[in-house]
């Protein structure tokens, strides 16, 4: 049963002025840089595409964190598994985009079923849920390797390999496509949460389960739908990672760590923060890789976490986080 113990009071309303100013300065820096240097522009766009993938997986983490107060460590593996499902569908002769949308449906069902079957019986204990998601990480990883093998697989390229030229700048169609698909899925989700009755009920259930149940919201169903939507976002992230990483069971493991960094950067409770955190991280890593000599690809993850640490020292609740006081 739900209890009244979960009572939170928001103290500040999220975004602070210095954070906004910092983000604006960052955006201006990117625009000015892109105008004055072609390579800078290319790296920025590629970074945004990479960051959009981080952002969608980070958003999946945030969705579940808000509802369950748990990080779903299996989110990345689930994304990998659903990407393999899409791969299997294309092997059976379906077109890429048909497989894409079918996979999103399957991912939704998978996420919801996992919540109902595995998570719901133990959801009263946060630590049990965490352990179970770690277990699922290992389980799904094993299943994927058992079914499809550990070697690289290749899917059809969703966006083709065309490169657009604007002035002296070359934009890969793939980067633009990844960016558009990721942003579109995030926007659709936002519309769902902000403007529909279902979205409102889901937010209510996540914020105050007991009060939501009192007005007639089926809290358990909302949680299942939340897990389903998170899995859909994960599937989008997985499918948008595949063109650059190719398909292998470990494909999303590093991405999950980046997504986690992005989510914490954004404040863990904030969907907007997760997306912006992801985009910022993607662009930052790409530009660092281009312009800072020692920042080789092996150092990307440590650098990402160094930045994260620095931000958390300055803003312990993340860029868009809010201070929370628990009433006892």
């Amino acid at each position: 049963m739900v209890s009244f113990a979960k009572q939170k009071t928001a103290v500040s309303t999220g975004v602070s002025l210095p954070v906004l100013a910092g983000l604006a300065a960052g955006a201006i820096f990117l625009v000015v840089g892109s105008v004055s240097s072609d390579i800078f522009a290319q790296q920025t766009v590629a970074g945004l595409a990479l960051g959009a993938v981080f952002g969608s997986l980070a958003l999946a983490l945030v969705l579940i964190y808000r509802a369950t107060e748990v990080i779903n460590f299996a989110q990345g593996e689930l994304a990998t598994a659903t990407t393999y499902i899409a791969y299997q569908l294309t092997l059976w002769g379906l077109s890429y985009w048909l497989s894409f949308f079918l996979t999103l449906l399957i991912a939704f069902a998978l996420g919801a079923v996992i919540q109902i079957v595995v998570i719901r019986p133990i959801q009263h204990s946060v630590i049990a849920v965490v352990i179970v998601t770690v277990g699922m990480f290992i389980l799904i990883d094993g299943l994927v390797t058992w079914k499809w093998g550990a070697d690289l697989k290749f899917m059809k390229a969703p966006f083709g390999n065309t490169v657009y030229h604007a002035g002296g700048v070359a934009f890969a169609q793939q980067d633009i496509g990844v960016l558009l698909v990721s942003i579109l899925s995030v926007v659709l989700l936002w519309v769902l949460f902000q403007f529909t009755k279902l979205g409102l009920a889901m937010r209510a259930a996540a914020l105050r389960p007991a009060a939501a149940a009192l007005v007639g919201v089926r809290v358990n169903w909302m949680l299942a739908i939340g897990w389903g939507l998170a899995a859909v976002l994960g599937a989008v992230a997985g499918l948008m990672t595949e063109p650059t990483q190719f398909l292998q069971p470990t494909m999303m493991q590093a991405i999950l760590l980046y997504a986690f960094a992005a989510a914490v950067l954004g404040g863990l409770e904030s969907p907007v923060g997760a997306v912006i955190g992801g985009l910022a991280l993607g662009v930052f890593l790409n530009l660092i890789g281009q312009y800072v000599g020692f920042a080789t690809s092996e150092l990307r993850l440590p650098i990402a976490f160094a930045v994260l640490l620095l931000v958390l020292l300055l803003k312990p609740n993340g860029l868009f986080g809010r201070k929370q006081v628990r009433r006892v």
Partner: protein
Amino acid sequence: MPEGRGTFSELTVWENLRLGAYTRRASKDDFARIQTYFHWLGERRHQQAGTLSGGEQQMLALARAFMQRPRLLLLDEPSLGLAPLLVTEIFRIVRELNENEGLTVLVVEQNAHIALQAAQTAYVLEVGRVALSGPSAELQAHESIRRSYLGY
């Protein structure tokens, strides 16, 4: 309406009202009608409920409960943590809802004075048993009630 309001403080005033009507299809009329009792709800619809004052939050909780179109409205300690002036205001509105909308209201309240004034019928519970019951006016005049609950 539970004790301690159960307001969704992170959501806006309007979203709270929409949630009140979650189990049915709310029409424009419902929102209009609720504003005849709580005039300020409309102009502050986009305000985060958590930033309202305690009294306003209590009124929002009452408005939200009313949006559910209950046949029987149960109020648990509506005076909890409110200034005396606001308690009077809340009970005035509860009375109005009762009289204008024909809404039956059951209030559990430790502020016996105001509860007896607002209600038509009252029950006094002692360790879980009904010790006394009857029309409020009679109970108000009752000797032992006056001593133990009203304090004069």
